[in-house]
């Protein structure tokens, strides 16, 4: 469960109510607690755009007791902290003036309850209470400013951490972009076959989800689509259908081509994809969808998928070019008979199952299938862009390869024969 801003204010009010029931003997303690409450309230109200003038003394008292007044300062402070940690996206709700006034009124009302406790408990009229009256007057003004009286509005649902203000739909674009970036960061020099298969599976999943969206929109009479949109959706579904065939062929091809077997890889892209898949599944599980929003989501999703697919294609090409994709010996032997047996001869069992080759004929299947796959995906993304109305909008494609493996450099500075290898960038 996420504690929202409304929850925190309600907790503060409850503590204030129980503070009213208590009896406090130690006046110095009560005054110190009140200083803490006042400091927290001032801080909190400043975040809501209200500045308390009265009683601005030096830094807040650090000491506060564990009784109700002390805890009230804590609760008000927690609310201020929650406002302070909002990111720019969710801080948009803070721009609503009426909501801010309502929240400030609630905070002031809670602080005012605390102030009444202090007024009752402190009998000797020292310097404190007269200042207290001025603060109370000001707090009452803030309370009175909320003429709407209908709760906190959008502010109430604020919570710490990434907020879901627009529901899962608004997250699709952001998570898709993160997924796309996670792929772009991986250089072809560190890619293994299992990652190629993983990427293919991810792309096929995205295509399946796009297919589902298109079918859902086509089947629903109430979606309010015109003929042109229906035709476009039909084209999208058709492209995604043939895309899946190509995807399965790529998958089958990758089973017959192998990169490194030994190293295990960390896959930030899989993590990013799991996030994306969760968000999209939530969107698809929601029954109250709107056609325009679903089209937007499909557009974002397929655009990211095209970028990832292009990166996959580039990666496969570079791996073939640098001889890092191995071929089963039986396949290679079909192209060139000499692969059937190593020149050195030896027993049949000693012949390796996978061989390395630079004959392009061995890879034409993979290259063609990946190209077809990307083509279909681009067609689908084009249809989705026309549907969402972003066909004419320029979009930034990802810049490939941010993370390169460090280059090696041979150092020869002294008379020592073999210095070993040293990283070219000392920072790595």
């Amino acid at each position, binding site marked *: 469960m996420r504690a929202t801003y409304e929850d925190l204010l309600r907790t503060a009010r409850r503590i204030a109510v129980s503070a009213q029931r208590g009896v406090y003997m130690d006046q110095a303690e009560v005054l110190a607690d009140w200083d803490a409450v006042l400091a927290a309230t001032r801080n909190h109200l400043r975040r809501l755009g209200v500045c308390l003038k009265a009683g601005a003394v030096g830094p807040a008292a650090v000491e506060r007791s564990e009784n109700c007044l002390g805890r009230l300062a804590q609760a008000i402070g927690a609310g201020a902290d929650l406002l302070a940690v909002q990111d720019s996206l969710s801080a948009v709700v803070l721009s609503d003036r009426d909501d801010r006034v309502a929240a400030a009124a609630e905070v002031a009302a809670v602080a005012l309850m605390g102030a009444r406790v202090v007024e009752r408990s402190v009998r000797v009229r020292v310097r404190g209470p007269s200042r207290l009256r001025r603060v109370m007057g000001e707090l009452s003004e803030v309370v009175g400013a909320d003429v709407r009286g209908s709760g906190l509005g959008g502010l109430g649902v604020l919570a710490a951490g990434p907020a879901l203000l627009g529901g899962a739909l608004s997250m699709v674009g952001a998570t898709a972009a993160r997924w796309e970036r996670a792929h772009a960061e991986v250089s072809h020099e560190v890619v293994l076959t299992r990652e190629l298969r*993983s990427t293919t599976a991810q792309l*096929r999943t995205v295509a*399946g989800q796009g297919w589902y969206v298109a079918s859902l929109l086509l089947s629903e009479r109430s979606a309010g689509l015109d003929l042109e949109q229906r035709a476009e959706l039909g084209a999208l579904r058709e492209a995604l259908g043939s895309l899946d065939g190509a995807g399965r062929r790529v998958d089958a091809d990758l089973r017959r081509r192998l990169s490194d077997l030994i190293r295990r890889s960390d896959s930030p892209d899989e993590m990013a994809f799991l996030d994306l*898949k969760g968000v999209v599944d939530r969107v698809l599980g929601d029954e109250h969808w709107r056609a325009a929003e679903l089209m937007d989501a499909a557009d974002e999703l397929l655009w990211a998928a095209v970028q990832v697919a292009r990166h996959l294609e580039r990666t496969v090409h570079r791996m073939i070019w640098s001889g890092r994709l191995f071929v089963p010996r039986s396949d290679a032997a079909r192209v060139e008979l000499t692969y059937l047996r190593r020149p050195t001869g030896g027993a049949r069992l000693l012949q390796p199952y996978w061989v390395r080759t630079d004959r392009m004929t061995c890879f034409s299947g993979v290259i063609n299938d990946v190209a077809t796959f990307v083509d279909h995906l681009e067609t689908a993304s084009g249809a989705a862009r026309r549907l969402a109305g972003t066909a004419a909008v320029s979009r930034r494609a990802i810049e490939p390869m941010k993370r390169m493996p460090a280059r090696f450099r041979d150092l020869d500075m002294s008379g020592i024969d073999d210095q070993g290898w040293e990283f070219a960038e000392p920072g790595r």
Partner: protein
Amino acid sequence: MDGYAVEGDEVRWRVVGLVGRAEAVVEGLEAGDGRWASTAFSRYRLCELLGIVPYVRYEGDVDGDPVALLEEAAGLVDRIEVSIEDLSWRLALGDAVRTAAADVRRVRDAGDV
């Protein structure tokens, strides 16, 4: 991911068998139906965690309900004995099995959307 810590762990092999069979069934189904594409990644992740590589052909029965097979596997996952270092592997596996079962069920139950 070394779930091989406990030698001769029968439960583990039963899970591998169930998942391998479900995978083979779905692979047979997806050949003629584009809807199954949306289960591709969850199935891939599950096979990868269990070390089921696609380089060898599946030799066994290719029938049965994949959802039932995966759910049976999900029930067994928590009984796989692992060392303390592999607990995270087992957690990931449990999540992967349940996600795959949910995805496969969604496609199976979707009918003609």
